[in-house]
């Protein structure tokens, strides 16, 4: 365009090419000659004057002519210069014309190319439109959000993506061309007709948390964003629908968890990895006395007694190593300066990528428990002390008993022997001098002395049993008892009782002492069946839950159970000496031995119906 304009301008100027200075001035000369016309008709003087005047005029004119000539010369020079300029310009113009022609040519080429490109572009954009439609379709179907396209004029559903149909449980076919307010899922929701019209008017409407019902009656919560826009030649409404049921549930859970934290009696404290408090529940307020406002932003160190300040660094270091701290018992200080015993659990709070974003600390006030523990500890120590003192007393008593029994064995026997010995000497040396009555008295004196000797022996045996240490081992009870039965109730004419003996399990204890137990029980059974026709003795054992109960049963005299508490007392007898001899020490000895083995002894009997003695032995711990 501009090229063409330049060419035109140059062409229009073309005719000024032959213009020069001379041709420009002749009109001026013609003008001078015609002026003044009437001079020839005047006097000589006048004519002289006139001639002079004319001469002067001529001179003036000559002068003027000279000036004009000079001026003309100047102009000629100027014209020449201009001609020169014009020539240069003409040359330049010619060059420009050439350039312009070249440019025109180029422009033409360019135009042709542009046209070609435009054609290509058109073809491309057609492809692109097709591709973008495909992309859109793919996005539409693949979107996690449900997308619903409505006809903005009629409210009919024009399209719905897979997420939406899956979300609602309706097929696309069921939805298509239905006015949205007639779809049951939307019936009560934001998409009822009134809302639709409102949206239609405003062009955009976000709704939060709209409850919908799926085809199978499930209530779900939706977040709805709708907008109206022009597509092709008609208005459509696009609704983006997001199922926020999960999110709502998560929010609800968070609220519930927060409520739990808030209602906890324990102090639940959030802190940074550096130990700066970030959260502080009412439990913490209760335990430590600081309000959340006072505590948040402070260092945990404010809760540490000065001597425990090092603990925090240690706790943080352990946490940094990935350890959790559970039920760590420590002392902290509350706002009022009181020391509080706490059980502390510290754990890392991690985000989804297991990155530590802070620490949680749960502290339980165990001051009361600690106090109780200290009390128990004190009582235990006190008890221990008392046990020590009591043991010392017992040891002293034992020692006393030892020297007492020594003196009994030594000093009480001698007079008895003298009584017996000299009584016998009288019997031997002076029997002839004594009447029969006197001899009977001497006999009675000797019997009394002998009986007292037996009592002393039994008492000493009993006291020795309490003092001697036990030598435990495994005992073949079966063999032991069979041998004793054979010895104490020998077969033959002296046999007076039928002894029934089942296989007895092994026992564990002091062999000599347990033998004494069996001897005493067996001799009792034999003694008290002495007057019985068809005397029977049954010996057995029964093991229940790992504990063996041994028993010796007879069908002898028995006894009244109301005297059972006297049965095992030293020198306690339930029968008269005339009926059954004995010192009343046998069962006391049995009980003592059984008790020293950590066992128990008891009896079951009825007068004239026999008696059964049961006993157990402990597992090796002395009573």
């Amino acid at each position, binding site marked *: 365009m501009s090229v063409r304009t330049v060419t035109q301008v140059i062409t229009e100027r073309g005719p000024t090419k032959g213009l020069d200075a001379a041709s420009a001035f002749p009109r001026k000369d013609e003008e001078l000659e015609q002026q003044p016309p009437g001079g020839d008709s005047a006097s000589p003087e006048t004519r002289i004057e006139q001639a002079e005047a004319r001469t002067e005029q001529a001179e003036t004119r000559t002068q003027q002519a000279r000036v004009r000539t000079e001026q003309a010369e100047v102009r000629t020079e100027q014209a020449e210069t201009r001609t020169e300029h014009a020539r240069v310009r003409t040359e330049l113009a010619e060059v420009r014309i050439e350039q312009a022609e070249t440019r025109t040519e180029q422009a033409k080429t360019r135009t042709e190319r542009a046209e070609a490109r435009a054609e290509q572009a058109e073809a491309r954009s057609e492809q692109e439109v097709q591709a973008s439609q495909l992309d859109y379709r793919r996005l539409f179907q693949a979107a996690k959000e449900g997308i619903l396209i409505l006809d903005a004029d009629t409210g009919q559903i024009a399209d719905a993506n897979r997420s939406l149909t899956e979300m609602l449980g309706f097929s696309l076919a069921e939805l298509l061309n239905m006015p949205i307010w007639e779809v049951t899922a939307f019936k009560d929701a934001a998409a009822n007709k009134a809302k639709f019209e409102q949206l239609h008017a405003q062009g955009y409407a976000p709704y939060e948390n709209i409850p919908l019902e799926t085809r199978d009656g499930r209530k779900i919560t939706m977040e709805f964003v709708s907008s109206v826009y022009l597509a092709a030649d008609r208005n459509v409404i696009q609704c983006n629908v997001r199922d926020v049921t999960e999110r709502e549930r998560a929010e609800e859970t968070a609220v519930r968890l927060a409520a739990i934290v808030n209602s906890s009696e324990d102090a639940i404290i959030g802190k940074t990895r550096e130990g700066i408090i970030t959260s502080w529940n009412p439990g913490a307020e209760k335990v430590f006395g600081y309000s959340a406002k006072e505590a948040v932003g402070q260092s945990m160190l404010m809760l540490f007694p000065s001597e425990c300040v090092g603990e925090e660094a240690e706790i943080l270091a352990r946490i940094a190593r990935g350890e959790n701290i559970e039920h760590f018992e420590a002392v902290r200080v509350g706002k009022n300066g009181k020391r509080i015993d706490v059980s502390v659990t510290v754990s890392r709070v991690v985000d989804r990528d297991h990155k530590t974003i802070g620490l949680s600390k749960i502290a339980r006030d165990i001051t009361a428990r600690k106090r109780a523990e200290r009390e128990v500890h004190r009582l235990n120590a006190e008890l221990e002390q008392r046990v020590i003192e009591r043991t010392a007393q017992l040891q002293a008593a034992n020692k006393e008993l030892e020297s007492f029994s020594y003196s009994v*064995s030594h000093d009480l026997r001698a007079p008895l022997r003298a009584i017996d010995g*000299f009584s*016998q000497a009288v019997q031997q040396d002076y029997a002839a001098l004594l009447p029969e009555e006197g001899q009977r008295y001497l006999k009675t004196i000797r019997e009394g002395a*002998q009986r007292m000797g037996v009592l002393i022996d039994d008492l000493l045996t009993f006291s020795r049993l309490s003092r001697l240490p036990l030598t435990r081992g495994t005992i073949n009870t079966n063999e032991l008892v069979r041998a004793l039965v054979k010895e104490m109730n020998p077969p033959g004419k002296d046999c007076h009782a039928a002894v029934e003996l089942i296989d007895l399990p092994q026992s564990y204890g002091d062999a000599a002492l347990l033998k004494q137990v069996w001897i005493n029980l067996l001799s009792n059974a034999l003694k008290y069946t002495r007057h019985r026709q068809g005397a029977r003795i049954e010996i057995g054992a029964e093991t229940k839950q790992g504990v063996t109960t041994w028993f010796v049963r007879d069908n002898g005299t028995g006894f009244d159970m109301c005297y059972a508490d006297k049965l095992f007392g030293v020198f306690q007898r339930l029968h008269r000496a005339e009926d059954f001899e004995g010192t009343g020490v046998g069962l006391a000895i049995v009980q003592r031995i059984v008790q020293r083995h950590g066992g128990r002894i008891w009896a079951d009997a009825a007068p004239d119906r026999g008696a059964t003695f049961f006993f157990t032995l402990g597992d090796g711990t002395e009573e």
Partner: protein
Amino acid sequence: MTEPTAMEILLVEDNSQDAELALRVLRQANIANHITLARDGAEALEILFGNASPSPEVAPKVILLDLKLPKINGLEVLKRVKSDPRTKLIPVVVLTSSREQSDVVQSYRLGVNSYIVKPVDFERFADAVQKVGMYWLLLNQPPHVDE
């Protein structure tokens, strides 16, 4: 010197009744006629070591020793007898009322030759004394000190 017969039994017994009964039994059984009685430990040691050195003739064939004695007790007497080369070969029989194991063990440690618990019953006491006398004086072969 007028009695060339050596002391046969040294009975160390503080209880005069026991001593009398023992002497009666031994005499009745005709076991010994020369019995010396010491009433406490000190007297026993005086008899054994008193007049210069005890000659073999003075040494008893057996010592019947009670343990619980006034002044010096039986275990001390036993210790002195068994640790002195002049008397260590004399058989010592403890005849005591004590059946305490500590006494029995201690006596054997000190070298006692026999330990008899006096039976409380006189008849058994008499029987025991008689058997002890019979055994040590008649059955037992003592070493000859002068050999």
